[in-house]
Each structure stands twice: as C-alpha cells, then as structure tokens.
C-alpha cells in the first residue's frame, strides 16, 4: 500500500531503511506474544474463566508494535477497550493482565477493572477505557500535562474507526492543534465498528483526512506492516516532540475475530477474513522477511514460538491460580483517603 498523507510539508523525507535483524526478531516476538496471548484469552473465555466483554486484537498486532517501537520511556499511552496488546507493548506483565481478565487478585486492577479497564502508572499506560472516544479527550489531556510541564514527553491516543465519529474526538483535535499539544492520534481502522463497515458509517472514509480542518497533518499507513508503522510513527513522534502539535496516523488494519467474543461476525464473509489472513498477516510478513533475509531459520522461529507459548501458559496458569479478590476489596479505592 502506498502511503497517503494530507500535507507534504510535514512529511519529512526519511530514507527508508530496512530494519535490522534484532529489530525484526523483536517485532516478531512481540507480535507473536500478543497473538498467543489473545488466543489464550479467547480460550479461557470459552472455558468461562473470563467473563463479560472481551475484545481480541488478533490481526492488528503490527499497529501497536510499530508505534511503541518509536516511543521513548515516559511517553504515555491510552486506548479504548481492545487493549490487551497495548498493555503488553507497554511492558506490562502478561500475568497481571491475564489475571485481570479472570477477575483475580493478581490482576492489574486487583480484579476490579476487567478486560476493558486496566492501567499501569509505572508503565505509563493510562487505560483501557470502555466509553468509545473517551480516550481521545483523556489522551489529549495527558499531552496537555506534558506541554504544561515542558518535559519533552508526548502521549499516544489510540482509537478505532468507530470512535472516529464521536464528537469529542473533534473537540480534542481542535484544542490539541490550538495549543500545539504533543499528542499522536492513532486511528486503528480495522474496517468495522462492531458490525458496521466504515463506508456505512463515515461520510469521509479516508480517516487520516479528519484533521484537515484543524490543520493537523494526517497520514494513512499500511497497518499490517510493522516496519511501515514504525517509520510513520517516527515521523509523527518527531513532529509532536518538536513542538509542532498533534499528528494523525490512520492505520489500515483488520481484526480476524468478532468485535467481542459473542459476535458471530456475519457482516463480512469468511473469504474476506481468510484473504487477509493468508495474504496480509502481519506476523507472517515479518516471518517471511526474517527467513528471506536469512536472519533466522524456521527452527529458530519455532523455538521462539515455544518460548512465547510458555510465557503465555504461565500467565494463564497464574490467572487461574490467583484467588478472587478479598470481599473487603469491595469498599477500597472508591476515594483516595485524605
């Protein structure tokens, strides 16, 4: 896919250089971890160990992996409710994430948040928000605080093609550009807002253009290619950190699973899903580059897969073994005690 952008001036010409072996292997491992983690979460949901809503990220792994690779320590990340992979990308412990999914004491929110509401102040992950679009205003506020403190940090607010139609997104765009806040808006366009295809909900389906009337540069990126994502993210980061204000990255991506676990996904064909899966899978793509570039052998990658599976299994075991929160937890954390 060729990259599209709204403004030539802001697109600094960066020489396209291929990622090195270590970088590629890291992407491969990170994305595989997300995939296996989500598959395991789906499995635990099927066993009744995870309840309620559970939105899996399978298929979209290249987006968060590529963006995260361009950030530096201290930058903040916030997203909506399809959030498990974002937490792993921020370096949060798979055990704590999985245990939150099972609603146990060992979870990041001690079982009180669940799949959609997890946080780590230590890892600068600000949620995990269940109200579609809320993270855009909140993420703009994170960036406001960076601007206010003059600390050189920035915030990344991820949201989907569905959230892109919420009013508060545009209220936020307006203020972010008005005050030139260091915020990167990453639209994860996975083509469907729950069951509604983008073209059925959006009068302008090229979502990277949504910042035009605010003067925010936007760029459309192949969100299935982690290297393309990383390159675009670096540009956006340089823009925002350089005091030029917000930047919009529209990631064209795809989710293989339903919107949530109880979605039969009848609004698209099996063939459509299979086509993406067979020809555009982000993990297969990097695998191919690793093998063709002679960076790794099939056996080495298999061994890596085994390591990842072991970590995920360990997380699942922890999430099963961790006890339910103590009944006294019902009354804690309502307010900070003064």
């Amino acid at each position, binding site marked *: 896919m060729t990259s599209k952008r709204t403004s030539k001036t802001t697109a600094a010409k960066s020489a396209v250089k291929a990622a090195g072996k270590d970088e590629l292997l890291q992407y491969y491992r990170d994305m595989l971890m997300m995939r296996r983690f989500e598959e395991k979460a789906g499995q635990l949901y099927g*066993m009744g160990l995870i309840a309620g809503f559970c939105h899996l990220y399978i298929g979209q792994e290249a987006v968060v992996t590529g963006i995260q690779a361009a950030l530096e320590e201290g930058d903040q990340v916030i997203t909506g409710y399809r959030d498990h992979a974002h937490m792993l990308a921020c370096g949060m412990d798979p055990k704590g994430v999985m245990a939150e999914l099972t609603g146990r004491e060992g979870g990041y929110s001690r079982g009180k948040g669940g799949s959609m509401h997890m946080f780590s102040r230590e890892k600068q992950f600000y949620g995990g928000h269940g109200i579609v679009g809320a993270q855009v205003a909140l993420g703009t506020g994170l960036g406001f605080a960076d601007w206010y403190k003059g600390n050189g940090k920035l915030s990344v607010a991820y949201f989907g093609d569905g959230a892109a139609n919420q009013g508060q997104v545009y209220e936020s765009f307006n203020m972010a550009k008005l005050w030139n806040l260091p915020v990167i808006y990453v639209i994860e366009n996975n083509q469907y807002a729950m069951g509604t295809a983008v073209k059925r909900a959006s009068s302008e389906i090229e979502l990277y253009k949504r910042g035009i009337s605010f003067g925010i540069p936007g760029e459309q990126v192949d969100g299935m290619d982690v290297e393309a994502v990383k390159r675009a993210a670096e540009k956006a980061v340089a823009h925002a950190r350089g005091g030029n204000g917000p930047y919009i990255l529209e990631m064209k991506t795809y989710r293989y699973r339903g919107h949530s676990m109880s979605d039969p996904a009848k609004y698209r064909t099996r063939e459509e899903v299979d086509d993406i899966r067979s020809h555009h899978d982000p993990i297969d793509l990097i695998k191919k580059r690793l093998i063709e570039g002679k960076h790794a052998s099939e056996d080495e990658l298999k061994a890596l897969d085994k390591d990842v599976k072991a970590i995920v299994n360990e997380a699942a075991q922890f999430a099963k073994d961790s006890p339910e929160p103590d009944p006294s937890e019902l009354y804690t954390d*309502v307010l900070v005690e003064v």
Partner: protein
Amino acid sequence: MSIEILMPALSPTMEEGTLAKWNIKEGDTVESGDVIAEIETDKATMEVEAVEEGVVAKLLVAEGTEGVKVNSPIAILAEDGEDASAVEAPSAKVETPASNDETPVSAPASGGSGSAAGGDEGGASKASLASDPEIPEGTKMVSTTVRDALRDAMAEEMRRDDTVFVMGEEVAEYQGAYKVTRGLLDEFGPRRVVDTPITEHGFAGLGVGAAFNGLRPVVEFMTFNFAMQAIDHIINSAAKTLYMSGGQMGCPIVFRGPNGAASRVGAQHSHDYSSWYANVPGLKVVAPYDAADAKGLLKAAIRDPNPVVFLEHELIYGESFDVPDVEDWVLPIGKAKVRREGTDVTITAHSRMVGFALKAAEILAEEGISAEVIDLRSLRPLDTDTIVQSVKKTNRIVCAEEGWGRMGVGAEIAAVVTAEAFDYLDAPPARVHQEDVPLPYAGNLEKLSLPGVDDIVKAAKAVCYAE
C-alpha cells in the same frame, strides 16, 4: 499429549448450545484459526476456530447435538507427531472453572445497603472528620463577596502549587463569565489560566487526562447546565477510574461553576444538579453558602486527591459575608455546619437555600417556634451524624433544596433520618423543593415553581402541627 477441545462459551450468558455443524472430520489436520465447527447459542450461530494446531483424533459430539454444556469436551486433537488413532476418549469428567462453582461473594457484614452502615459515605470515616479550624480571638473579619472568596481561593492555591491551573470558557481574557476568575490571567498568565473553546465534553475530558498525568485542574463550567455535555467524563472517567484501576489512577480535579436557578433564564439554564452528582461514588460534592465556606472549601477541594464537584450559585456570587483574615483558611469537606441552634424543628439546606432557611427561622422564632438550621455544605460525603443528632433533639425535620424533589437530596435525608432516628420523630420528615415541572420563564410562574422562605415556614409549621 492430546488436546481436548471444549465446548466454548460464546456469550456472557451462554451455558449450553447446539453443535450445529462440524467443518472437520477425524484425520484432518487443523491449524490455529481454522473454522472447525458452527455452534448455535441462544443469540446467534457462531463459528468456532481452532486455537491449537494438530490432527483431529476424535469428534466426541455428533453434529446436531443440542444442549451441549459449556466446557464439556467436543473433540480431541493429536499434537504434532502423535498417533491420532491411539488417542483415548476422555472420561466424562468435565472440569468446571473455579469461578463457577463458588457462590458469589457475599457482602461483608459491615457493608450492605443504607447509609446506616457507613460504607457509602464516600469512604471518609466520620470519626476522623476534623471540625472547622478555630478562629483565633481577635482575628480580623473581612467582608468579602462569594465571588471574590472563590477567586481568592484559586489564587492562593495557584501561588502555593504550580500544578494547579484553571480552564474553562471565558476564564482568562474576559475575566470570567461571572467574573469569578477576575485578575487570575494577569497574575498567572495564559499557561495557567486557559481560555477554552466552547467544548465542554472535550475540555472536561482533557482536564481529567491532565489530572491523571500529574496536574490539578480547576475546570470551570459557565454553568453546570452545560456540564451535562461533559457528565460522561465527570462520572465515567473522573469518578470511576480510581476504583477500576485498583487504586492506581487518582484524579485530583475540581469541576466548579454556578448551579441551579439564576433569574428568568428558562428551563435549560436553571437546573440544580445536586442530587445527580451526589448519587455517584467516587466523587465528592460540595455546595457552600457563604463566602467563608466558599473560600475554605474550594481550597480544600483543590488540595483533595479526588474529583470534587463544586456547586456554586449565581444568585449569591454578589452577596458579602465575613471571611476570617487568616493565613490559610481551609475547611474540611464532609462536615455540615449548624448555622442556627434551635429546639423545635431541624431545617437542612445547602447553597442558596441556606439563606432562605435562616430567614424562615427568624419568622418562625417570631411565632414561637425554635428552628435549628443545618447548612449541609457537602452532599457527598453527607454529614448524617450532625443531621441525626439534631433530629434527636428537635424530633422534626424539614429538608429544603432548590432542585426537584423526586429522588432528591431531601429524599435521601428523609430516608437517613427515618432509618437512624425513627423513634425520635414526632412527625414525618417534610420536603421543600422545586415544583415537578421544567422551570418556566414567566416571572410569576418561575416564582411559583421555585421554593422560597414561605414554603420552608409552612413546612416547619406543618411538622410542628402549628397550622
């Protein structure tokens, strides 16, 4: 090792389903992601994908079987290199997840419903609530408008703490739509006194995000009527996140502005939101009456590590009251104030209604009825101790508020008093509130709709059987 494929739960409520169709047969090789079966749930027919890869050794449940319980084995996969034909079907034992065979956690004895248990008073332990600071003898009292007292509170806190900033519509260059932020821009500059576009939902969310990231925003709404556009962030983002994050994400923010009826501005600019916000755990809700309380409580709200909804009243901004001229006038949030002592009837009120209650008490005194007036000051936490103690003395109560009565502040207080001082009551609790209609514009109708001094006098006489 062979792998059991279990009947999956495909919706939050599914307990069993129909295995409508197998897309695989014994001997097939499956990869993770292959559709292996179709299952009918109570809501839809869903495709089931393989999670593991392997060779199908056995299909344990025939196509078309109804009532297949969630978590029962439906097929067996042989892993790479394993002989599929040698795989044994499992015994009928089905592992039930731990979370399903335990009864739901019962509430501990100390919790449960009703404020009597004390569990719902915003987590603030009543016993630990400080009283108002003593005002040293000889302290100079300075006559100050509520408007200036609020401004002084913000200015003092901004001088004290660089993370405190004010944002809202017309707060900076215009000097405040109601001049509450007058002078702040000059002293603190545009970084800390931020004029926003007319975008309540957006700037409330931005403020909450800034609070998550270490600042202490004071978000001014031109009136709380407009905060209705922002109430999602006040409740879903500000009030709930601490709990949902297991205590990690504190949100030290103040949402402030005028609340309730102004004068002849019609239904959309006259709404009293006291009971709305006071309903929400995770918020503190403060509604002061006089200038000293406005200053002391706003300073406390800005220092509080929690989100505070600070309800002011346009019609008392210009009234002057004595404010003690002390170095750092901070009052505890959650403590009511007995503004007038009495023996025959308790009158509770907050915000502008306190003034009406005090006037009513004077009239009642002329008629030989001694009224005790309690200024609630804080609606969450609500100082039920002070109210109940008073009722135990007077045996009668009138709850006055400006907003609608249904599910209102007075309804809550009546419930508390009935639960905690039932045997002391000599009359049913009475409520005074706005008429149950949108506020009309016409002068005479507006007057008829809003509660006033006379209504309080009448209600107090009624509970005293002094008609």
